[in-house]
C-alpha cells in the first residue's frame, strides 16, 4: 500500500511540470481564451512529440500503453497549467470509445493517428436536456441503405468545432440505455453546423446541429443499439480525468494563495499571520489533498478492475467538485480586490473550476450515484 507516485510517475510529473511551465505560460492561456480555435497547434505538436496523446493507447497502435494512473498524473499538471485545447476530448472522449468498442480496422484507422497528434476528436453526448443519463440521448439515427441519417442537436460538446471526427451518441430505437448507437462521424460532413457557446471558463464548447447527416454503416462503433455500455466506460475515464484536472487546478490556486498570504501586508503584518486567514488555508489544504487521494483511488480501482470502482469514481467526483469550489472560493477571498481583476491570474482558476465541477456530473449527481450503490 503506497499512495504516492512511483518512479515512472514521478518522472512524468516532473517532466510535464517543467515542459508546461515553459510551453504553456499564463500568456498562452489568456491568448487562447480569445482565440477562435482555442488551442495552439504548435503546443499540440510538441505535446504529441512527448507521446502524451498516445499515453494510454496500446503499443501496437502507436501508443505508450500506460494506465489511467499515469494519465491522472499528467492531467494534474494540465490542471495546474490550465492547458487549453482538445486534449481530454481527443485522448479520452475520442480514443477510449474506439479502444473499447472499435473493430481492428477502426482501431488501426484512428488510434495511431491520435497517438501521433494528427487527429483531433471528441464525443458528442449531451443535448439541450443537459442530462448525463441515457434517457437524455434523443438524436435520431435512421438506417437508409448502406448509410445512417442523423438528425438532432447536441449541446455542450467540448472542442467540437476543431475536431476531425466526433463520436456521436445517437438513438437508433428503444428507450433509455437500450437502442443507443455510436457513430464515428467526419466533422466536415454535409449537414453539420457548429456554433460555439460562450462559457464561464472561455473553454470551447459547441452546439452541434445534425441535419440529415449521412454516415456510412462502416462508421458504427460497436454493436448497434448497445452503445450505452461504451459511453459508460468512457464516462468513467472522463470523470476521473475531470477530477485529476481539478486536483491540479486546486493545488495551483492554493499554492498561489498561500504565497500571497505570506507576502501581502496589512495592519503592519502579513495577512497570513491572522487566524481568519490561517484557518481558511488549513481547510483548503485538506480539500486539495483529499481530492488528490480519492482521485488516485478511483484511477487505481478502475485500472485494476476493482469491485468498488464505480463507487470510488462517484465519491471522487462528488468530493473533488465541492472541495475544489471551496478552495478557489477561499483563493478569491484571501486575494481580496486584486483577485477580482482580470489582470491577476487567480480568476483564471476560479472560472475553470466551475466548468470542471459541472463536467461529467456535479457533486449532487454523484452523491446520488453513491447512495444508489450504498443500497446494494
Amino acid at each position, binding site marked *: 500500500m*503506497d499512495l504516492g507516485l512511483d518512479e515512472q510517475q514521478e518522472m512524468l510529473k516532473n517532466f510535464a511540470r517543467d515542459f508546461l511551465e515553459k510551453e504553456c505560460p499564463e500568456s498562452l492561456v489568456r491568448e487562447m481564451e480569445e482565440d477562435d480555435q482555442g488551442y495552439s497547434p504548435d503546443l499540440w505538436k510538441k505535446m504529441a512529440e512527448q507521446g502524451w496523446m498516445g499515453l494510454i493507447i496500446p503499443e501496437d497502435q502507436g501508443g505508450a500503453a500506460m494506465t489511467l494512473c499515469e494519465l491522472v498524473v499528467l492531467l494534474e499538471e494540465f490542471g495546474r497549467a490550465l492547458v487549453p485545447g482538445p486534449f481530454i476530448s481527443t485522448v479520452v472522449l475520442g480514443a477510449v470509445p474506439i479502444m473499447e468498442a472499435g473493430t481492428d480496422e477502426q482501431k488501426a484507422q484512428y488510434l495511431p493517428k491520435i497517438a501521433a497528434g494528427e487527429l483531433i476528436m471528441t464525443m458528442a453526448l449531451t443535448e439541450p436536456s443537459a442530462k448525463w443519463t441515457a434517457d437524455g440521448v434523443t438524436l435520431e439515427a435512421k438506417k437508409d441503405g448502406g448509410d445512417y441519417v442523423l438528425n438532432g442537436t447536441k449541446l455542450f460538446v467540448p472542442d467540437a468545432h476543431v475536431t476531425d471526427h466526433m463520436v456521436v451518441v445517437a438513438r437508433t430505437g428503444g428507450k433509455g440505455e437500450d437502442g443507443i448507437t455510436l457513430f464515428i462521424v467526419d466533422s466536415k460532413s454535409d449537414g453539420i453546423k457548429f456554433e460555439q457557446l460562450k462559457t464561464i471558463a472561455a473553454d470551447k464548447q459547441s452546439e452541434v446541429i445534425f441535419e440529415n447527416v449521412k454516415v456510412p454503416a462502416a462508421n458504427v462503433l460497436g454493436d448497434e443499439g448497445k452503445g450505452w455500455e461504451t459511453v459508460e466506460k468512457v464516462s468513467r475515464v472522463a470523470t476521473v480525468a475531470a477530477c485529476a484536472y481539478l486536483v491540479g487546478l486546486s493545488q495551483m490556486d492554493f499554492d498561489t494563495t498561500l504565497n500571497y498570504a505570506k507576502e501581502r501586508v496589512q495592519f503592519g503584518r502579513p495577512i497570513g499571520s491572522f487566524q481568519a486567514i490561517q*484557518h481558511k488555508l488549513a481547510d483548503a489544504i485538506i480539500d486539495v489533498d483529499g481530492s488528490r487521494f480519492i482521485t488516485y483511488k478511483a484511477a487505481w480501482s478502475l485500472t485494476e478492475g476493482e469491485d468498488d470502482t464505480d463507487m470510488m469514481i462517484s465519491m471522487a467526483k462528488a468530493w473533488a467538485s465541492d472541495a475544489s469550489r471551496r478552495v478557489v472560493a477561499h483563493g478569491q477571498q484571501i486575494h481580496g480586490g486584486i483577485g477580482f481583476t482580470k489582470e491577476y491570474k487567480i480568476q483564471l482558476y476560479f472560472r475553470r473550476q466551475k466548468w470542471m465541477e459541472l463536467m461529467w456530473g456535479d457533486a449532487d449527481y454523484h452523491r446520488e450515484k453513491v447512495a444508489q450503490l*450504498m443500497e446494494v
Partner: protein
Amino acid sequence: MDFRFTPQEQAFREEIRDWLKTNLPDHTPGDRMSGDSENLNVYKMFAQRLATKGWVAPHWPKEYGGLGLSVVEQLVFNEEMAEASAPMGYSTIGTGWVGPTLIVYGTDEQKQRWLPQITAGDVMWCQGFSEPNAGSDLASLKTSAVRDGDDYVINGQKIWTSGAHYADWMILIARTDPEAPKHKGISYFLVDMKTPGLSTTPLIDMMDNHAFNEVFFDNVRVPRANLLGEENRGWYMAATTLDFERSSIGGAVGAGRMVRELTQYCVDTPWNGHRLIDESRVRSRLSDAAIEAELGRLLSYRVITLQSRGAVPNYEASIAKLFNTDMQLRMARSGLEIMGLYGQLDHQDKYAPLKGRFERQYLWQTGLAVGGGTTEIQKNIIATRGLGLPRQ
C-alpha cells in the same frame, strides 16, 4: 499509486481476525472506559490477552517488548481492532505516549523500569498536561516542581485527566524554572499515582461518565530518577509525544462502520409510505457520510505512505487527525438529524435507534473536537508549522 496490501499483510489481517473471534470479550463495554470498575476490568483483561501475543505495542522494537512491525502492519492491526470495536483503552497512553517518549529520551534504567510493564498490559498511565488556566495555551502551565535534595516537590493542579482515578502512573509536565521563557522552564516527570499528597476528584462529563478528573498535588515528592530527559526541556519532549499520535486510522474505520449501520437503519425504517433511504435529503447525507469516511481513511493511509517511505509526516498527520475528528462529529450529527425525533433519545431509552450509539457519538465527538488540541489549535498548527505561515 498502489492501494493493495501485500499477501503477508493480508495474512496478518486474517490472523488478527481469527484471534479476535475467540479473544474479544463477550461483554464489550457500551462506549468508553467510564467510571465503573467492571468496565475497567474488561479493558485490563483484554490488554493482558493482547500481551500474550505481543500485541500491546506491536510496532515497538523487539528489544522493548514489541514485535517490530512495519508501519503498514501496524495500520492493519489498528484497523482490525477498530473494526471489531476492541476495548483498547487500557494501554493507549502507555503505548502511544509514554513508551515512544521513553524510547527516545529515557535512560536505559528508565526504559527497563517502565517499558516491560506497559507491553505486559499491567499498568495504566494517565497524562497530566492540562491545567485550569493552561488549556490551548498549554505552555503557560503553573504546576511547580522544586528541587529538594534527591526529589522534586510538586505543587499545583491538573485537569481533564482521563483515567486518573484508575491509573498507576502519570506523565506530568511541570514548571522547574519560573524565571525562564514559558516554553523553556518545563520538565517532564513520571509520577507514581500512589505518592502521598496526590489526590484526584471526579469530573463528570456531559455524557454522565466519569472519565476525567482533577488531580491535585500537595507537596508531592517525586524522585529525581523519575525526571525524563534534561531539566527544563520537557516542553519539547511533550511536543514530540504529541507527534506520536499517528495516522488516526481508528476514527476512519469507526466512521465506516457507523455509515454501514446508519444505511441499514435507513433501509429498514419505513417513512411516509416508503423507506427512509428513499428520501432525497437522507440519500444526500448518507452519501456525504460515506464519502467522508473514505476520505478519512485515505488521509490516514497517506500518513502511513510517508512513514513507510522513511519521511516524517508534518502537516499531513495533523490534517488526518483534524479531518477524522471533524468528520465523525458531522457524521454523528447527520445520523441524529436523519433519525428525526428519535435521534434525541438517550441510549437507555427503549425506542433509541441503533441502541443510541449515534446519540452517544454525538456527545462524545463534541468532546473530541476539544481534547488533545482543539480544532482551532489544530488549524493553527497546520497553518504555521505545516504551511509556513507567519505567527505574527
